[in-house]
C-alpha cells in the first residue's frame, strides 16, 4: 500500500486540454472519489496514474517514488475498468489468476490466493464458470477479485458500478466500502454519482472541465463548497443561490438581498460592488410568518419523511426541505427563515466562495 501524490498534472489532446493543473494527495489507505460530470477528465486523470496515458506535464508519485514515466506494468497498481474487461476466453479462476501468472507466482500459491480472494468476495462457487455467462454483480466481483488478488500498491476504479442497476448499486456501494475497511488499500474511485462518492469516500475531489474545483472530506465539500459549481453539483436538490449586487465589508455580519437584511457568518474580506450569491442548502430553510424574506409557494414534492417545497422569490425558485406534515397551498405567500450560521457567500464573477468565519474555521481547525 502506498500514498498517491499528483503534482500539477496536465493532459492535452491536441489543442484540447482534458486535465488542467491537478494536484492532490491520497494518503496511504485512503479512499478518494474523483467526482465530476461526464467529460470532465476523471478517466484521463485515472489513466495517467495507471500509466496508460502520459501526462503533458506534471508529476505522479506512488509511495514516494516518481513514476511519471514508468510503464503501467512497472507501477504495481490494479485497475478496475468500467466494463470490467474480463477476458472472455478464460474462466473466472483464470481471470483472477492472470495477474499472478505475470509475476511468476508458484502454481500452488496462485491457487491458494485465488481461492482466498474468491472467498473474500463470495464468488468461490463460480470459480470454474465462464465469465461470459455471469450476471452484472458477479462480473463486478470477478473484476474486483482480479484487482485485489495481486495485493497492489493501490486500486484505481473507473465507474465500476456504472452499468449495474440502481438496487444492486446500493448493495455494491456497501460491499465496496466494507471491502475497503477490511483491506485498507489506497483507492482512487471515479464516479459521476455524488451519492456514491459521499457514501464511500474518505476524500472527494470534485472535477469540472479538467479542473479540480475542490478537494476535501465529504463533509467539507457539502458544508463548505469552495465554488458555486461544487455547491450546485453536490446535494439534491442542490444549494439555492440568492443573487444580489452590493459591496462587502470586512467584518460585516449581514448582507442585503432584495431589500431584506440577512445575517451571515462574519465576512473576512473587503470586496468592491459586484454581483454576489448567498448560498443556502434546502435543509437550512424553514418557514416563518414573521420573516421579511417572502415568496409564493410554487409546488411541493413529497419524500416521505420530508418534502421539498419550491418557493418563487421573484428572481427564481428557492427549494426548501421541510417536515412532511406541513401543508401549503400553491400560491400561498410564505416567509423564509435562513439558518444564518450555515450560509455561504459566493462571488458570482469568479464563482469562488467569499472568505468568512464559516470557511475560516475549516482552514484553522
Amino acid at each position, binding site marked *: 500500500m502506498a500514498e498517491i501524490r499528483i503534482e500539477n498534472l496536465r493532459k492535452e489532446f491536441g489543442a484540447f486540454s482534458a486535465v488542467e493543473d491537478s494536484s492532490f494527495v491520497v494518503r496511504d489507505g485512503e479512499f478518494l472519489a474523483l467526482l465530476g460530470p461526464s467529460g470532465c477528465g476523471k478517466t484521463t486523470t485515472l489513466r495517467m496514474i*495507471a*500509466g*496508460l496515458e502520459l501526462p503533458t506535464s506534471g508529476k505522479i508519485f506512488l509511495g514516494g517514488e516518481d513514476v511519471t514515466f514508468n*510503464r*503501467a*506494468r512497472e*507501477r504495481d*497498481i*490494479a*485497475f478496475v*475498468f468500467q*466494463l470490467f*474487461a474480463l*477476458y*472472455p*476466453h478464460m474462466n473466472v479462476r483464470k481471470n483472477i489468476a*492472470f*495477474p499472478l501468472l*505475470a*509475476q511468476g507466482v508458484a502454481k500452488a500459491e496462485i491457487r491458494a490466493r485465488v481461492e482466498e480472494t474468491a472467498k473474500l468476495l463470495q464468488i468461490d462457487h463460480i470459480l470454474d464458470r465462464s465469465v*461470459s455467462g455471469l450476471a452484472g454483480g458477479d462480473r463486478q466481483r470477478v473484476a474486483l477479485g*482480479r484487482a485485489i488478488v*495481486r495485493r497492489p500498491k493501490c486500486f484505481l476504479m473507473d465507474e465500476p458500478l456504472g452499468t449495474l442497476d440502481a438496487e444492486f448499486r446500493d448493495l455494491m456501494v456497501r460491499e465496496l466500502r466494507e471491502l475497503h475497511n477490511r483491506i485498507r488499500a489506497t483507492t482512487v474511485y471515479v464516479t459521476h454519482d455524488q451519492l456514491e462518492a459521499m457514501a464511500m469516500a474518505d476524500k472527494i475531489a470534485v472535477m469540472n472541465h479538467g479542473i479540480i474545483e475542490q478537494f476535501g472530506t465529504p463533509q467539507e465539500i457539502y458544508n463548505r463548497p469552495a465554488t458555486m459549481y461544487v455547491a450546485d453539483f453536490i446535494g439534491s436538490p442542490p444549494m439555492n443561490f440568492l443573487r444580489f449586487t452590493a459591496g462587502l465589508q470586512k467584518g460585516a455580519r449581514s448582507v442585503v438581498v432584495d431589500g431584506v437584511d440577512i445575517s451571515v457568518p462574519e465576512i473576512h474580506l473587503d470586496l468592491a460592488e459586484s454581483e454576489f450569491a448567498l448560498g443556502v442548502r434546502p435543509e437550512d430553510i424553514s418557514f416563518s410568518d414573521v420573516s421579511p424574506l417572502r415568496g409564493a409557494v410554487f409546488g411541493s414534492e413529497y419524500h416521505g419523511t420530508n418534502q421539498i417545497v419550491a418557493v418563487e422569490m421573484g428572481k427564481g425558485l428557492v427549494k426548501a426541505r421541510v417536515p412532511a406534515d406541513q401543508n401549503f397551498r400553491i400560491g400561498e405567500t410564505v416567509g423564509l427563515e435562513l439558518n444564518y450560521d450555515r450560509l455561504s457567500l459566493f462571488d458570482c464573477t469568479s464563482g469562488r466562495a467569499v472568505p468568512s468565519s464559516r470557511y475560516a474555521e475549516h482552514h484553522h481547525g
Partner: protein
Amino acid sequence: MSSVNTAHSVVEPSRTSKRIAATIVIAYAVITMIPLVWIVLTSFKSPPDSISYPPKIVFQPTLEGYCNLFTTRTRQTPEYITSLGAPTSTCDEITRSRNMVIAGPSNYWPRFQNSLVIAFGSTFLAVSLGTLAAYGFSRFKVPLAEDLLFFILSTRMMPPIAVAIPIYLMYRQLGLSDTALGMILLYTAVNVSLAVWLLKGFIDEIPREYEEAAMIDGYTRMQAFFKVVLPQATTGIAATAIFCLIFAWNEYAFAVLLTSGAAQTAPPFIPTIIGEGGQDWPAVAAGTTIFVVPILVFTILLRKQLLRGITFGAVRK
C-alpha cells in the same frame, strides 16, 4: 412476443416470404452444384462413357479416371501383358484391360503437394503479417495511416495479371522462377492487403481495455497481444485465412506463367492431363475432384467464422 398470431410482426419475415426465400436459395444452390456434381460423376466414368452422347446419367462406375490421374502408362502387346502374371492392384487390372501397363507415378501428387505447401504457406504468412499490421493500424497513431491503408488496398485495384510480365522478369533475375518460395512470396503479397483490411475491422472491435488490463496486470504489450488480443481475434483470423487460402489455392494465371516444373501447382497441371493419351476427361475430372476437397473440408470446418467474416463482425458474440 405476443401469443396472438393474427397481427403480423414488422420485423419478423412472414411465413410466405420465408418460403419464397428458401425456394430461391435452394434453387440457386442446386444450379451452382450441377457442374460440381457433373465433375464428380465424370471422374467415375470410363473414357467412352464420359464423351457419349446423349450424356449418361446412369453408368457403370470405374476408378479408371483416378488410376490414370496418378499413373503414367505405356501401350504393350497382349502377349507381353499375359506374360506378366496376376495384376497387383485394381489399377493394374484396369490398365491392362486397356492393353497398357503402369510405367510409373504421374506428376499429379507432387503438383498437389506444391499446391498445399504454397497455398498454406502463403496463407500463414499473409495472415500473420496482416494481423500484426492490422493491430498496429488499429491501436497506434501511425503517421499517414489513412494513406497507407489506401495504398495497401490500392494494390488490389489492378488486375494481378497486369504485373505478370514485370514479375516474371524480376523472378528470373532473382532466381525465384519456378520455386515454391517465389510463389509463396507472390501470393502473400497479393493476400496481405486483404488480410490487413479484414483483420483491422475485427481488431477494431476488440476493446482496448483488455490489453490495458493485461498491461496493468504486469504483461508487456507483446504478451498482452498474444494472450488477450489474439484469442479474441480467432474468428476474424479464421475468416481471413479462408479467403486467403481460396485465392492462393485457385490461382491460375501467375502459376502458369511462373511455374513449369519443380514448383508447379495443381491448377496449371490439371489441364495438361488431357493431352496424355487421347481425351482423358475422367482423369481431368478426378484431378479436379481431389483438388476441391481440401477447400471444401476447410470451409465446412470454419463455416461459422466464414459467415461472420462476410458480415464483418456485424454479428456480435
